[in-house]
Each structure stands twice: as structure tokens, then as C-alpha cells.
């Protein structure tokens, strides 16, 4: 009996020892991963993009129940307000028809004037549309994953727009996915100018819904002024709408974003440099999202 109980406790002791060793190794491994990530940041970010790109299909599948439930919710919500929506849309359509006619006239006029001036046709910047496949926000980092990647000619630095307003910048591209760092992320800094004020500044995300506006001259800080990208530094094309200036209770100038960055769905991506289009550019516009609006 004595011998048996001794082996039993010895076995237990061994298990405890092995556990301890594994625990130490794991802690060491995780901390060194963290340190390596700081030292070799660029390379590791590429690793991150690759890993995320390869496991995203599985994760997307796992999130299906939730997305489905949310879809049902919106579906019911839309049906409840269907009559109002139809009326609204009819009004909008009526207005848009007028605008379409006007646009046609302007287009013709534009072409005629170009002809007179004998200029070459302006290179339109390459535009890609994409769908958000994952919200990857934490309490202090704000980003999202898109369903386009290097396959579609996307690379770091592209501007991501929600409608006509800037939402963020591409950072981290895998073959089929790309990450957009939203304007409210602390690492997001965008050179901007205030329309009509000839004043420049930088918006810096600080984790709240409205990024701070820094380095702008105090005289130009009138709430309601429109803030657009200045194009300085060459990351973003100039004159993309960002939002309106607001001054909060803490007297810090902030920008109320035009883009609804926390509820992005379909976005368009714009190339930073307008000169060269990627080889995939065929006619200039590519629609990659499955349910996205098709070009006529």
C-alpha cells in the first residue's frame, strides 16, 4: 500500500512539474512574440494579414448565425416602414431624374470644351468597391476587414470611402482581404484643410467617435466648417470630404465624420496616386462585391 501511494503522488508531482514547464514556456513564447512584433513590425504585420486572410472564411462562417439574425431584424424593420420608404424613394427618384438630365448636359458641354482646348482626357483614379466582412474593433483600436485584396490590385495606403466621405485607409493587405484602419483609430492621422479658410491641420483619432483636429489656426475653428483632405503627404487624394468641425464641451476641436465608420457596409476604395492604374484596371471601374451595384 505504501509503495502504491508513493508512486501515485510521484506521478502527480511529475504532472505538476511538466505543467509548470509548459506554463513557463508559453508565457515566455507569448511575451517574446509581443516583443518580436514591436521589433519586426512591418514583416509581422504582413504575417498577420496572411493569417487573417487564410482563416477569415472559417470565421465568417462562424459569424453567420449572428449576421443572419441581424439581417432578419433589419428585414422586419424595413417592412414595418415600407410605405414611408417607398414614398421617400419616389421623391428621391424624381429629384435624381432632374439631376441626371443636368449631368448629361454638363458632360456634353465638358466634352465639347475639352475638344476646344484639345486636352487629353483626364485619368480618372482607379476605383474599387468592396464589402466589409468583419468588424474588428476593440475598446481602443478601430478597423474593419474588406473582401478585396492584392488580387484586386489593392495595396497599402488606398483611401476607403463611405459614399463620398472618407472612412479610413488601407493598412495590411492579403490576397483576398484588406484591412481598413478607420479615421477614429488612434493610429489614424490625416492631413486636412478647412474649406474656405485656407487653414490646414491634422485629424487624429483618439478612440472617440470624433477625431481631434490639431495644428489648425484658431481663427478658422468655426463649428460647422467643412473639413476635407488636403492631399499633403500624398497618402490621400485631395478634397475628399471628411466631415464638419465641431467644438465639444472640453473646447477641443473635433471633426464630426460624414462617414458612418462604425456601420460600414459597402465602401469604395480610391488609389492614392492618380497617375498609374493597376494592371487589373479594365475600364477603370471594377465591382468586386457579389451583391454590390453592377456597373451598367
Amino acid at each position: 500500500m505504501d509503495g502504491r501511494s508513493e508512486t501515485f503522488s510521484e506521478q502527480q508531482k511529475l504532472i505538476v512539474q511538466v505543467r509548470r514547464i509548459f506554463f513557463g514556456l508559453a508565457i515566455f513564447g507569448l511575451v517574446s512574440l509581443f516583443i518580436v512584433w514591436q521589433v519586426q513590425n512591418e514583416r509581422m504585420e504582413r504575417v498577420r494579414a496572411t493569417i487573417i486572410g487564410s482563416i477569415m472564411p472559417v470565421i465568417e462562417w462562424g459569424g453567420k448565425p449572428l449576421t443572419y439574425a441581424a439581417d432578419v431584424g433589419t428585414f422586419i424593420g424595413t417592412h414595418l416602414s415600407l410605405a414611408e420608404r417607398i414614398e421617400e424613394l419616389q421623391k428621391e427618384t424624381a429629384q435624381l431624374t432632374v439631376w441626371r438630365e443636368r449631368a448629361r448636359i454638363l458632360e456634353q458641354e465638358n466634352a465639347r470644351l475639352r475638344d476646344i482646348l484639345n486636352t487629353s482626357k483626364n485619368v480618372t483614379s482607379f476605383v474599387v468597391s468592396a464589402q466589409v466582412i468583419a468588424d474588428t474593433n476593440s475598446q481602443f483600436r478601430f478597423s474593419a476587414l474588406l473582401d478585396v485584396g492584392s488580387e484586386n490590385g489593392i495595396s497599402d495606403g488606398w483611401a476607403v470611402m463611405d459614399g463620398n466621405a472618407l472612412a479610413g485607409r488601407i493598412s495590411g493587405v492579403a490576397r483576398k482581404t484588406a484591412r481598413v484602419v478607420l479615421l477614429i483609430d488612434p493610429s489614424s492621422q490625416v492631413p486636412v484643410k478647412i474649406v474656405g479658410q485656407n487653414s490646414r491641420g491634422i485629424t487624429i483619432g483618439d478612440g472617440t467617435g470624433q477625431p481631434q483636429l490639431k495644428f489648425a489656426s484658431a481663427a478658422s475653428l468655426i463649428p460647422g466648417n467643412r473639413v476635407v483632405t488636403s492631399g499633403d503627404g500624398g497618402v490621400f487624394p485631395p478634397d475628399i470630404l471628411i466631415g464638419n468641425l465641431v467644438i465639444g464641451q472640453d473646447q477641443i476641436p473635433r471633426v464630426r465624420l460624414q462617414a458612418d465608420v462604425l456601420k460600414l457596409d459597402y465602401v469604395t476604395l480610391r488609389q492614392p496616386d492618380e497617375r498609374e492604374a493597376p494592371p487589373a484596371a479594365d475600364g477603370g471601374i471594377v465591382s468586386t462585391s457579389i451583391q454590390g451595384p453592377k456597373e451598367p
Partner: protein
Amino acid sequence: MEKTAKDWRFRLLFALALFFIVASIAAPVSLLPEIIPSPDLIYCLAICWLIRRPRYVLSFTVISATLLCELLILNSPGLWSAIMLLLCEYFRLNSERISRLPFWLEWGVAAFFFAIAQLSYHVILNIIFLPAAPLRAIVLHSAMTALCYPMVVLVTTFVFRVTKPSLKEVILFHTKANERKI
């Protein structure tokens, strides 16, 4: 033999639950209208199970989930996972003691350790000049996690049927252990 099969069934269940938590974090559905930090459900689930049945919780599973989460959001991965591993180990070693506490104290312990862990995590980030959350976000995040803990416990108890070992089980376990010795 039968016992280990049951263990592995529950370990698999735990891994699946964590997987769906990570997937729903990533799903492009904004459940909260404003920027309110979402609760850390991985922590809640891991701690809740560790207090009840530490055998079912493999630290490897928890760390995989937190690492995946860290990769998905823009964190530099590793640090939070290491902290989670420390927390897991602490709760595993003290599981028996904590499981004897009344629920409100268990809740308090879980919330307290999360807040401390979050705080130290962000202090470290601040020290090495990485983007860290403002204090307000940390407090909100901890509060949300604390609020969600009872719900996770409810789901664990009534859906997963993972409960604290009853007195009968404890006695049975000890008599069996004694039998084995003799």
C-alpha cells in the same frame, strides 16, 4: 475511461463556444449603437468554467482564442494572451477555493481580476508608447464584462450544464481516490 471521454466532449464544447464568440466579435454587425466597449466574453466564459470545472478548460484553447482575437483587432499579439494565461492559471489553482464562495463574491473576484488585468495591460502599453485605451474606455470595458458575467454563468449552468461539483460528487471522488490508493 468513460470519464476522460466526457472530459474531452466538454473540452470540445468549450473550444466551439470560444470559436463562436470570436466569430461573433468579428461579424460585421454592430450590436451596440455607439462606441461602447464590448464585454470580453472570452474572459467571462473561461473564468466561469475554470471556477466550475477546471478540467474542461484547456489553457491552450483559451490562448488560441485570445491570440486569434488579438490578431483580428489591431493589437500587437502576445501580451494580452500572456496576461490571460496568468489569469487562467491563477483561477485554476484557486478554483476549489473560489467555487466555495457565494455567487456574488465569485462575481466580485472575476470582475476585480479583469479590471486589474486590463489596467496593467494598458499601463504596459503606455510605458512602451503603444496606442492604449483611455481610462474611460478601460473602466467601461471592465464594467461591461462584469455585467455580462452573470449571463455567461446562466448560460453555462442551464445550456451547457456545467455546474459546480455537488457535495455528492466531491465525496464520491474522494472515496474513489481512496479506493485507488488501497
